[in-house]
């Protein structure tokens, strides 16, 4: 009897573990392309979480399902089940196991987070300059490397990028492949969020702060950059593209852009706000969108929603 229980439990656990591992492998397919080093790390961690989660979920739900299917009271059976108030050993086990699991998950997550290290060296800025009113005057740290970080300027509801070394402005973010990208995130009005799903990274942009942000793109292509922190009426329309290209193509794009005169970029929020309403739709008064920026390099592709 005892041995039988152990065998049954053992086989169930092994079967569950196999299913869970399989689920963990499936998890890699649930995402946009892996376009950054951070995305690789993320997917690894997520796959692990899916495996563990599947195991716990199936274990608990399996037990419930077994009871529901096989331990029902007969129609006229009004007797009670056995009077079992508890079992200390069991309770200790199911307190200890989650504690161990938590330590495991937390340690692994910590490790992955450290490897990503997406917040740059200026992170200490949060503690010092919370109330600063004039973010624009804040230059990158004096000890910054020769290459200045690309500045990301967010405002309602425009993304504008500034390459300080070439004095290029654009509404599309170009990044060289296989190189660590350094960004400086700034907002001029409300909170916004810098989010590129293909990179699996995100950072809120806070007015009055300049936030150093880093990551490494590893796959050429065009990806979506979305505002991830709700910023008012046209929040959903505040999107643009990130273009990851070979360092040569990137340099070429920069020199071309530096040589182009600024033009008025397309801006969806602005467009919508000033579009004549042909169908009278009820809406409420909104904050007026910022005018479209004048940039050297406007987006090469536009999307209209």
């Amino acid at each position, binding site marked *: 009897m005892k041995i039988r229980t152990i065998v049954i439990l053992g086989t169930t656990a092994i079967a569950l573990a196999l299913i869970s591992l399989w689920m963990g492998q499936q998890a890699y397919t649930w995402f946009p392309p892996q376009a950054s080093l951070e995305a690789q790390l993320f997917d690894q961690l997520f796959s692990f979480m899916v495996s563990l989660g599947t195991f716990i979920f199936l274990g608990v739900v399996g037990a419930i399902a077994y009871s529901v299917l096989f331990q029902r009271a007969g129609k006229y059976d009004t007797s009670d089940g056995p009077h079992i108030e508890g079992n200390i050993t069991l309770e200790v086990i199911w307190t200890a196991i989650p504690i161990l699991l938590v330590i495991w998950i937390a340690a692994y997550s910590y490790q992955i987070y450290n490897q990503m290290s997406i917040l740059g060296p200026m992170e200490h800025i949060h*503690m010092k300059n919370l*109330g600063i009113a004039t973010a624009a005057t804040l230059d990158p740290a004096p000890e910054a490397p020769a290459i200045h970080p690309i500045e990301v300027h967010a405002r309602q509801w425009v993304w504008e990028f500034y390459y300080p070394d070439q004095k290029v402005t654009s509404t599309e973010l170009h990044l060289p492949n296989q190189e660590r990208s350094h960004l400086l995130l700034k907002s001029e009005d409300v909170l916004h969020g810098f989010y590129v799903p293909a990179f699996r990274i995100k950072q809120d942009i806070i007015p009055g702060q300049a936030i150093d942000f880093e990551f490494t793109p590893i796959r050429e292509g065009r990806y979506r950059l979305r505002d991830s922190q709700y910023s008012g009426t046209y929040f959903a329309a505040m999107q643009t593209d990130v273009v990851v290209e070979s360092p040569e193509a990137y340099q070429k794009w920069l020199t071309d852009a530096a040589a182009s005169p600024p033009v008025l970029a397309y801006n969806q929020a602005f467009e919508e706000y000033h579009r004549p309403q042909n169908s009278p739709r009820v809406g409420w008064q909104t904050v007026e969108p910022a005018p479209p920026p004048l940039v050297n390099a406007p987006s090469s592709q536009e999307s209209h929603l």
Partner: protein
Amino acid sequence: MNPTEIDALNVASSHSLEAQVSAAHTHDEAGNSMFGFIVFLLSESVIFLSFFTGYIVYKTTALDWLPKDFTGLEIHDPAINTVVLVSSSFVIYIAERFLHAKNLWGFRAFWLLTMVMGSYFLYGQAVEWHSLPFGFTDGVFGGSFYLLTGFHGLHVMTGVLLQGIMLGRSFIPGNYDKGEFGVAATSLFWHFVDVIWIILFILIYVWQ
């Protein structure tokens, strides 16, 4: 159910159970009210704690902390005010002792003295507010200064009002037959307001 079973259980039930039964039957209203009031005060203190935390965060992080052309708060008059408010806590305690001793007039005298001291504190604060060169909307310092002192001032005012009511009630014959919950609660509230002020004084005036 089987009656012998119940009997057995009744016998088994201890003295303490019987004590509880009789206690539950007399049902202690004032005790409940006092308990509830303490719970409320504990919760209320978290509001102050939040404001204090906000103040500390602003003070340690803001770049332009003090408004332009303002060098710091004068501490002399507020210190006197503090002494008055803190001593009133002892005065109200004496008033309570008198009430316990059934000396109604002694109670009223010291109770009234507490009210006078509380009112003096409010007056002193009003004078200070008028003399300050900055307003509510002058930066985070202006905002948090008036928010903290104002919110506390509201509590002092509430305290004085409550004291007024209790004073009035003391003239109703037989008012204390059912206990002194109102007086005890008001006095507790007053101590609470006092302790908050001490922290506030240290944060705003001493730590500059």
